[in-house]
């Protein structure tokens, strides 16, 4: 996880810092594949595909530098759906964080503490369970601007799975 300061006028980047797996207590970043920033600017979330994990950072809103906060790992404290995770998204409202777990054919759902950024595992939506289809090889996840729907790309299903927030159920699959 690498941090750059951005000059808003020129767009140019200046290296600020790097957080690496195994250094200064940072974990969850083995094969760091995707990064997301919460809309309130208070947190940065990154997934490590080989860590099967989400690393949570708190963000200094003055200079953007990060402090490692916690990690959520597949199989620990009931966390599921993160095996070979490939994508992460924060809902625009900042209430939820979603991660695509490729080898679980799943989308993992976390509730986000909007004060600290800490994550609490809620559920894993998995292909073939409770009517969910289209998630084979779950590879990318995104949230609609109104926070109402989650879209996940199923690499091996050649599909997009569509979830309705709150209903926690699959509505449709588009192929």
């Amino acid at each position, binding site marked *: 996880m690498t941090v750059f300061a951005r000059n808003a006028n020129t767009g140019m980047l200046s290296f600020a810092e790097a957080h690496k797996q195994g250094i200064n207590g940072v974990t969850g970043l083995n094969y760091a*594949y995707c990064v997301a920033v919460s809309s309130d600017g208070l947190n940065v979330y990154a997934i490590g595909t080989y860590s099967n994990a989400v690393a949570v950072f708190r963000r200094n809103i003055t200079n953007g530098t990060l402090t490692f906060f916690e990690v959520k790992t597949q199989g620990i404290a009931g966390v599921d759906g993160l095996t070979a995770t490939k994508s992460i998204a924060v809902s625009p409202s900042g209430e939820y964080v979603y991660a695509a777990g490729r080898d679980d054919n799943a989308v993992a759902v976390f509730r986000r503490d909007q004060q600290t950024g800490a994550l609490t595992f809620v559920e894993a939506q998995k292909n073939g369970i409770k009517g969910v289809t289209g998630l084979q090889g779950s590879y990318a996840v995104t949230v609609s601007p109104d926070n109402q729907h989650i879209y996940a790309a199923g690499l091996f299903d050649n599909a997009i799975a569509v979830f309705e927030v709150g209903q926690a159920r699959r509505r449709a699959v588009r192929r």
Partner: protein
Amino acid sequence: MYVAAETDSSLAQKNGANGVEGLALARNVKVSLDGRHVYAAGFGNSAIAVFSRTATTGKLRFVQMVKEGVNGVSGLSDVASLELSPDGGNVYAAAVGSVP
């Protein structure tokens, strides 16, 4: 990076052309919220390519490349993904090859 309007494919930015660097195996691209800049992750260069953007035309102009191992940059090896902060003050990059 390839930028094309429906009737105009002349907006493309290609690695190695017109001084553009850092786009080898481009894996991810993001536009700043102010619309003024575009950032691309060049996995094959372990680099981020920075472009300024003309809003009216969408045209890009290469500004800068930041690259693993150059000018103290670390943590960009095999960069896969990037994101801007909502306030526009930072760019964050996830790099799969960044090991201690």
